[in-house]
Structures are given as C-alpha cells and as structure tokens.
C-alpha cells in the first residue's frame, strides 16, 4: 500500500523539486502513507504486548475466580471465594498472606526513605565538576549492574555468622561479632535493607544527578544575591528544582521495594520462620511451587490494589506540596 502511495508522490517530487520542499504543505505528505502502514510497523510489538501483557492481565482475573490448581484437570468456578478467604482469619491462606504483606510493608517502610535520601546526598556531593567525578559516579553505580542473584549470594557470604567479613570487622571495632544477620530478626531486616541500599543507591543517585544539573545556575546566583545561605538555597532552590523528579523517583523506588524478592529468597530463604518472606515471594510460592494459581492470582490483585493506592497517595502528597511551595515563593 505504501508503494502505491509513494508512486503517487513521484510526479510531485519531479515537479516541485526545483522550487525546493519548503513550500510543500504538510497535509499531503501525511497522507502519503496507506492506512495499514502504521499498523504494519506496530504489529510485531502488539503481538508480544497482546500475548504477554494484555492477555495475562485479563486471564489473571479469570484464574482468580476459579479454584485453579495447575496440576488438576478440573478447575471449578468459585466466584470471589479466593478473595474472601484472604480476608477470613480462619482460612489457611490468610495468615501466611498477611504475614508476607507485613514483611513487604516493613521492608518498604525502611528501605524507601533511605533510598530517597542517601542517593540525594551522594548526588549533591557529585553535582559539581571535580577531577574523577565520572569515575566515582561509575563506582557508585556499579553494584546496580550486578543483578540481585550475584548481590544476594555475595552478601550472604559477607554476612555469614562465623566467617563473614561484616562480623569480623564489627569485632575489630569492639562491637558484637556474632550477629546472625540472615537467620534472626531484626538483624535480617537490617541486612536486607542495607544490601538493597548498597545495590540500588547508584541508580537513584544518577537520576537525581541528572535532575540537579537541569536546575539553572542563575537561580542559585539570584538566591545568593538575595542573601540566602547554603541551607536556604537548598530548601528554596534545590528542592523545588527537584520537584518534577521527586514524585517519579518516590514511586519507582516504592514499587521496586514492594516487589522485593531475590534478596529474601537467596539471603534469608524468607526466614527466620516466614518473617522475611515478602508478598511477591508468597505469591510465587503459592502459585508456581504449590500450583494454587487461583489463590495466588487473587493475592496478586490485592497487592496491586495496595500498590495503586499507595502510588495515588504519593502523587497526591506531591501535588499538595507543589502548590504550597509555589505560594511560599510568591509571598
């Protein structure tokens, strides 16, 4: 179809060439494509997207309405029972599920604030040009390219009770050197949060750094002329300048923390007991190890609702703050 369209265009080209293409109106060129052309371009992607994003998103709801055991031939329709039993305290699934939601909550609550503030401090220290800056930026980013499996296996070694580097150096500093980092709480939470901060700090720092460099230097100069000290400049220039990025970085950090899986799977095996087994871990084990897919699908939608509510809340907070600082700036 596009061949025909371009054949139509040929005479135009010959006729108009000497006059140049400046005067060419936009509309005819836009029409030179056949109606199917854009869809031919989109087809390969839409095939993947339909098959592995749209279809499963719908299929998941269907599964969650059935007692869907992957290994059994019959998958009877049970309506909302999978959802209801998640909220019934006497059911076998609700205890482990809400325990895992609690684990995800604890992890998110402690990791997100650290992952929002520490990378900002690093980015502020690196926002000015100095010798070796790009090298340092690369070092802070490096753990992120390793992937969670390497990071978790490595840190389980470093955090080993008896022969681990961490306990050894704590002992040298005169601190307790027998902490069971991966088999007792709250130490396991410190370990999981600490390792995650080490692993992903560079990712957030790089995003902050790019945003800091977009703040016009003139704003700082103007603030200085007005007599603002360093802290006031940070509060009135840097923070408002980071506003556009702040809600984005909060949301992606929040979602990443709420999706924590590998650290717990490899470092603590969800232990002690099930204390560090996160919601994702619980969903994967229920659906893909025990093959109770109906129940697991229901859990995944409940978790998703939670995440959407929290994300909406974050958006709302940032909108409120944006308005109030704008007012502040005007007054």
């Amino acid at each position: 179809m596009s061949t025909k369209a371009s054949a139509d265009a040929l005479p135009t080209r010959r006729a108009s060439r000497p006059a140049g293409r400046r005067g060419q109106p936009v509309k005819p060129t836009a029409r030179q494509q056949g109606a199917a052309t854009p869809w031919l371009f989109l087809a390969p992607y839409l095939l993947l997207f339909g098959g592995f994003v749209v279809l499963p998103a719908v299929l998941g709801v269907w599964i969650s309405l059935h007692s869907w055991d992957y290994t059994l031939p019959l998958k009877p329709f049970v309506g909302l029972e999978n959802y209801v039993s998640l909220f019934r305290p006497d059911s076998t699934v609700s205890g482990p599920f809400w325990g895992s939601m609690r684990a995800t909550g604890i992890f998110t609550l402690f990791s997100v604030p650290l992952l929002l503030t520490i990378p900002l401090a690093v980015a502020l220290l690196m926002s000015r040009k100095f010798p070796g800056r790009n090298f340092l930026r690369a070092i802070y980013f490096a753990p992120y390219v390793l992937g969670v499996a390497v990071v978790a296996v490595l840190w389980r070694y470093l955090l080993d009770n008896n022969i681990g580097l961490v306990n050894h150096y704590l002992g040298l500093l005169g601190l307790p050197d027998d902490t069971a980092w991966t088999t007792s709480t709250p130490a396991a939470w410190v370990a999981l949060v600490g390792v995650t901060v080490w692993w992903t700090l560079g990712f957030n720092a790089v995003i902050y750094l790019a945003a800091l460099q977009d703040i016009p230097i003139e704003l700082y100069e103007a603030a200085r002329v007005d007599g603002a000290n360093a802290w006031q400049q940070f509060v009135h220039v840097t923070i408002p300048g980071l506003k556009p990025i702040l809600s984005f970085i909060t949301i992606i950090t929040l979602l990443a923390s709420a999706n924590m899986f590998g650290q717990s799977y490899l470092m603590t095996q969800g232990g002690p007991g099930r204390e560090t087994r996160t919601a994702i871990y619980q969903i994967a084990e229920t659906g893909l190890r025990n093959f109770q897919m109906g129940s697991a699908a229901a859990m995944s939608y409940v978790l998703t609702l939670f995440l959407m509510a929290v994300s909406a809340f974050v958006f709302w907070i940032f909108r409120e703050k944006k308005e109030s600082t704008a007012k502040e700036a005007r007054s």
Partner: protein
Amino acid sequence: MTTVEKVDSPVSATESRPVSRRATIARVVILGSIAIAFISPIIFMVVTSFKTRAEAAGIPPTWIPNPFSLQAYESILAPGTGTPVLQWFANSMIAAALNAALVVITASLAAYPLARMHFRGKNVVFAVIVATLLVPPVILVIPNYLIVSELGWLNSLLAVIVPTAASAFGVFFMRQFFISLPVELEEAARLDGANRFIIFTRVVLPLAKPALATLALLAFLGNWNDFLWPVYVLFSPEVQTLPAGLSTLQSANAVRYDLLMAGAVVASVPVLALFVFLQRFIIEGVSRSGVKG
C-alpha cells in the same frame, strides 16, 4: 550546601579560589574513601574466588589469596557436577542477546508510527502501552506461566526470551528519541519517493544508533540479571540462566563460598565489562528515563 559554590564566579574569583580548591579536595577525599568502601564487596568477591576452599572458610578473612588458586573455577567448570556453569553462561548469553534484539526491533518499529504518523487509534494505543508501565509485573506472573506452559515453552529458553520482550519502556524511550530528531531528512527522503519502511531503515535508524545501543544494553542487562521468572520457569539445571543457576549452586553448596564466589564472578564479568566500556550509554539511559517521568 556546597553545591551552590561556583568556581568561576566572576565577582569573587580571586578570593574564593583557595577555599573552593580546599573544598574540592575535601569532597574528592570524602567521596573517594566512601567509594573504596563501597566497591570493596565486589573486590572481595573476586579475591575469594581465587582462594582455596580452606582459605575461603578461614578466619580472619584475607584480602590477598595465598596461595593464588584456580581450584574453585576448575571445580565449578568441570563437567558432570550437576551445576553446569558453562552451560548457564551460554544460556544467559543466548537469552539476553535474543531478548535485547527482540526488544530493539519491536520497540523501534512500534515507536516510529507513534512518533511520526497520523492515524486513527494512535493515542489509544500509546496510552494503553504507557499505562502498563504502572502495572505491577506481579499480576502477570501467574497467568504468563500458564500461557508459556500452553505454548510448550516451560523449561526452555524461549520462556525467558519472548514474554519479557514486550517492552513498554522500550516503545516510550524510542518514541521520545524519534520525536527529538529533525523531520526534514525524512521529508526529503519521502519527496525522493522512498516509502515509510525504507525511510525508517535507511534514514531514521542510522540516526537513532545511540538510542538503539542504549536500549539494547538496558534490555541485555535486565534479561541477564532477571531472577524471579527464570527461577520458576526453568527447572532443569541444563536450561537455566546464571541467576537461576546461582540459586541452584547455592542450594547444592551451602557454605562453599569459594565456589559460590567463582560462580558469582562468572555471572558478573560480562555485565561489568559492558559497564566499564559502555557506562556512558547505561548511565545516560537511566538518567534520561528519569527526566522524562
């Protein structure tokens, strides 16, 4: 904070120079020492992989292997161990390369009409694709397992190559890039009688090389490091990728940290090498992904 000092401020250049030089030195020293501490776990991982079994389990931990030993590598790379690390390496390479290729091809093809053509349904398609960026991937895991199972891809590399290639981020990223290109070259080619596909492959894609390279790298890294999905869909050791394999290696050798660190090094070398040589693309890709949000 010190961010706001400006070295070449025209007014106070002479007075502020010594102070800011001292501040710069302090900054380099602070950031440098933190950086050394920061990177030391990775160094210790490499160091340990060259230790003997006894030294790796010894107290106190040592920073220089004595003797320098290849035992751990010989042991994990030997055939017939039930933990075929070389096979995992090959599987990871194949999966990540093919996945990255699929992402780059499908995302750039899809992004082009969304950036440059006018057609019915364009806004709806784009909105739906972008909306899925906010869908937590967890709701896709269970149903995708069934879909992959129906396709007969369970326990095969296809399961980790194809489903994750539907990259909404890729489409979004390439569309932004195409929009930023000047339209004149494409118009000139069109007036020369080229059809849209020829324009796309001969004019647009060559201009988009940096963006394509960045997207390919991010897709490769993402696939190479993916953990949850491969752990559950690849269950035989010989079809696993390295992250799933590391999990197998860990359950088989709970406290053989020499072996585990050697396995971790094998899993890290390709991505660290890519990072060292192409870090500009990776870091800029990540920071650009943020700026647009």
